[in-house]
């Protein structure tokens, strides 16, 4: 049981080692002649104006929030899916109510216009 996960750990380490060495090799092999204009931010060749790290639209947050709602709801459904064979029709109806609640919240978000991209 624990060795199941050990393999993932080993793969993580091996993959990090094999992939991590690639940029270092690239650094050693490739020519390194940086100059000022080479190290500038590349935006259509124009000089960049202002700071990049600014406040951005709140719309993205709305999508992220609704995603969290559905992701957590979906994760809660996974144990039920595994135990599906051991519940009867009544259990299924109860879970359907939970899923329909999720759907109702999505409907509310759509009706409020939270998912309209402008």
């Amino acid at each position: 049981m624990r060795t199941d996960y050990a393999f993932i750990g080993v793969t993580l380490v091996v993959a990090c080692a094999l992939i991590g060495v690639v940029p270092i090799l690239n650094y050693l092999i490739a020519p390194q002649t940086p100059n000022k204009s080479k190290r500038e931010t590349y935006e259509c060749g124009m000089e960049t104006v202002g700071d990049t790290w600014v406040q951005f639209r709140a719309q993205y947050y709305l999508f992220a929030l609704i995603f969290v709602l559905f992701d957590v709801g979906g994760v809660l459904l996974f144990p039920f899916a595994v135990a599906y064979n051991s519940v009867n029709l009544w259990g299924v109806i109860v879970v359907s109510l939970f899923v329909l609640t999720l759907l109702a919240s999505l409907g509310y978000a759509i009706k409020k216009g939270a998912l309209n991209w402008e």
Partner: protein
Amino acid sequence: MDIINNLVKNLGDGIAAGIYGALGQGIAADILIMVIAAIAVFAVASGGFAGLTYAERKIVARIQDRVGPNQAGPYGILQPIADAVKLFTKEDTTPAEADFWVYHLAPIIVAVFATLTFTVVPFAPGVVGTNLNIGAFYIIAIGSASTIAILMAGWGSNNKYSLLGAFRTVAQLVGYEVPMLLNMLPVIMLTGSMSLVDIIERQAGWNGSWGLPFIVILPLSGLAFLISGIAETGRSPFDLLEAESEIVAGFHVEYSGMKFGLIMMGEYMNALGVAVMFSVLFLGGYAGPILPPYLWLVLKAFGVFLVLMWLRGTLPRVRIDQLLNMNWKFFVPLSVVNLILVMILGKVFVSDPALFKANGGILIQPLAQALIMGASSFALLMIALAIVTRRVRKDRMAEAAILLQRRETNQQIAASVH
């Protein structure tokens, strides 16, 4: 025949036996075997990446009436090696204002987590990195790590186009994870396990020895899973996060040399991962007649990837509002309704006598159960498409009417000026 069928498994067992013989049974031997297996998994993933870049360029070129790479070696077959050499010898320019750690770590994280997907994929009976009991769930969890890495790349580059690409990523990749998750659930319900090996065995053993892939039983889930999988890996026609013609190259505009190569590698591995997952979950994985099992998985995964290339070669890119509307207003509600439909049908029509005794319902043949589920799922898809088509046509008509009115007003203004 058995020798060919179990070739990979016997090879692995032979190496393991040799190591146990040399080192004795112990933790050192276990770790060495795991390291070799991990390198094998990495080799499969990166070999698939190298082969697919060539195949994709060649096939998409044919679709678009071009020749594609043809200089390096016969039919350009050495193109992946030429690309690797070129990328390795390219100067790696880093923008002066980039965030050092975030910028340099992002490509490594993309590639590493794409590799990790392949640790749970069963390549043949007994040939699986690790048969996790939460395999399907693990794939979803690992898959969302690439979103973080792309956001890191976009943010760390300190470039406005990169950041725009990264923002689109958050809205897109994050959103399409939901239908992917919801369409995996019916498969897990019918199997009763999240282990990928169990899912394959369930499809192979449907109705006694008759194999029946889940795509026949759950066509809607399969279709929605594939489409959201393509969107999740950010491939054309959902490649808004790179969109060469709009925001230069999106999140990886500032990356050059092998760092760019690593990002491409991660993307291709993720796309290959989706193709492999679709073959495992809906096409029966390594199960198949005559040919050896590992060949079946490769064939099925390549077949799915061919569909991905075909879509890339033919479809134009969708707009971001269309993309998000399609997800939140079509796929997610449809997946939820489909989930409820499968849940209730699976309880009303029971094929397993033991389950019938425990929970009741109507006892029928497995094939009849599959047919009922497949037909009702297909009917649901058709109804949903009919509703959406009508709705979208109405919207388009309204838009066209507004445009027409505007044009008439403009003409009147133009006429009054002259």
